[in-house]
């Protein structure tokens, strides 16, 4: 898959020139650029509105602000009950712990499924694949009751603990696919050298799985950072709010029409995702092509 997906600039331009007239090539780029501009326009508008004064946001149509002000960011930062840095920190803590949890638990399970032989393996694997298709809301009510009985409401446990228990079958599946592609001879050689399953796992397999681990980390970052439903359900104390919940408060207080601040903080909330996307693009595209993750 990776060979297929690699961008091939030299080949691409060769194929582009092959059998296409100049006009056809020009038209093709024109169409793609037009789609690209339409796609990017909302984001550009968001950034531009975040530095415009409130009175101009819906009046001044140009993307380049006639009046440039950064006060939306400084004011928006402190517009809610807590400074925005609290929400960012909360989200960051949840994201980092979720990544650690997913990497640990999913790689362990994946190694078990991909390499070890034990009674009931096929059944468990089918069960794991089955949970991928299960709509989350089926478990919602009993899980909520369970978490409230455990006195976990208004804590981060309901958001974190499942990640340490390999409940995200997509990532297990991704890693299983990756591990199955590694040559078995490596395991055999390690066993002859006296490695048990655990040492084979963390000395041989895990280092070779780095691309799959990176994909998991990037996907976990983006999905947990954007997650809205879980925090909405389990967090009611504003001090614990994550970034998406905080943004929602801007909507509730929209009567004051502080659009500039709202857009500024919206941009602050999507900027890390864009940053991670640019940094981890390689892994994202590879991961989505092998498992079809969103």
């Amino acid at each position, binding site marked *: 898959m990776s060979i297929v997906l690699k961008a091939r600039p030299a080949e691409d331009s060769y194929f582009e020139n092959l059998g296409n007239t100049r006009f056809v090539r020009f038209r093709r780029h024109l169409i793609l650029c037009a789609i690209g501009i339409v796609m990017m326009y909302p984001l550009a508008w968001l950034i531009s509105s975040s530095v415009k004064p409130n009175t101009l946001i819906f009046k001044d149509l140009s993307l380049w602000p006639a009046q440039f002000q950064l006060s939306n960011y400084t004011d928006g930062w402190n517009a809610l009950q807590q400074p925005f840095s609290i929400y960012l920190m909360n989200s960051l803590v949840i994201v980092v712990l979720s990544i650690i949890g997913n990497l640990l638990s999913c790689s362990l399970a994946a190694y078990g499924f991909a390499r070890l032989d034990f009674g009931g393996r096929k059944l468990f694997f089918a069960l794991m694949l089955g949970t991928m298709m299960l709509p989350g809301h089926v478990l919602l009510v009993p*899980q909520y009751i369970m978490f409230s009985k455990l006195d976990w409401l208004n804590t981060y446990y309901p958001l974190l603990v499942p990640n340490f228990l390999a409940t995200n079958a997509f990532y297990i599946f991704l890693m299983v696919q990756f591990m199955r592609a590694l040559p078995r001879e490596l395991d055999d050689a390690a066993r002859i050298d006296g490695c048990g399953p655990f040492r084979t796992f963390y000395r041989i397999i895990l280092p070779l799985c780095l691309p799959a681990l990176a994909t998991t980390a990037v996907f976990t970052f983006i999905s947990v950072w954007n997650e809205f439903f879980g925090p909405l359900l389990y967090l009611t104390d504003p001090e614990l709010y994550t970034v998406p919940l905080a943004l929602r408060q801007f909507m509730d207080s929209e009567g004051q029409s502080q659009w500039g601040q709202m857009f500024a903080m919206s941009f602050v909330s999507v900027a890390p995702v864009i940053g991670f996307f640019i940094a981890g693009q390689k892994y994202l595209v590879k991961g989505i092509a092998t498992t079809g993750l969103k």
Partner: protein
Amino acid sequence: MTALLERTTRARPAAPARKPAPRKRRRDRAGYVFLLPWFVGMLFTIVPFFASLYLAFTDYNLLNAPRWIGFANFREMLADPLLRQSMKVTFLYTFISVPASLAVALLVAMVLNKGIRGLAVYRAVFYLPSLLGGSVAIVILWRHIFGANGIVNDLLGWFGIHGPGWTSDPDFSLSTLILLHVWTFGSPMVIFLAGLRQIPVMYYEASAIDGASKWQQFRSITLPLLSPIIFFNLIQSLISSFQTFTQGFVMSGGTGGPADSTLFYNLYLYQQGFSQFHMGYASAMAWMLLVIIAAFTAINFLAAKYWVFYEQ
């Protein structure tokens, strides 16, 4: 039974048959140790799974013990106009936005697959929105782009069209969310692109020599060879779009308005379960959704026999 067992054990020499057992047990143990977190996690899945099936047949408000009421929840669902509305919204959204976004994804992937300079840049630009589509920030942004005096209406104004208040008009509010879904066509596009790149170029060359038109090539080469990937994307998108929640919640401030036009099924489920604490009813709704999703997936798998083509 014991006699039979004795006879079989006596018939064979016991030692060699018994010997692999401890080693097998040790081998098994390693597997179970690696899967330990997953086993515990499965408890967090399987127990709630059956618990919610039980709760679906009860009246439960979180304070009093669940009271068994048989099929009353399901009978109530049949008569519930809001439930019907939420289904209408969800089906309308799914059956327009899923085919639309898959079609756009396939078209763009085919253009990109023609061999084009700057492929990586185009791919990145088209893919980025699909990472942001579910975030609160983007739904807020959408609400204002399509607001009564948002930029979409300004653009339409240039052509002399007086646009409606997209988000405040019940006839149009869902269409803005459908557009938001289409905006995120990037993730199926990347999968399509990976699939297209695996179709050997020689098929196209051979058919071109035989005088096939572009449309014939698309019908007879691209579509059949890509059908497993189209199928995969279709199942994935259907399952996830039946479960849409955030878009409807943020767009309407949690109400599903205007006039229940963005009352997605899961949003209504949330309102029933966590604003009105009809936990039994919410569980019944969740099971109904599970059955609907399972039925659609099954229909897809059955229909796949007729249109999905597997090479070998």
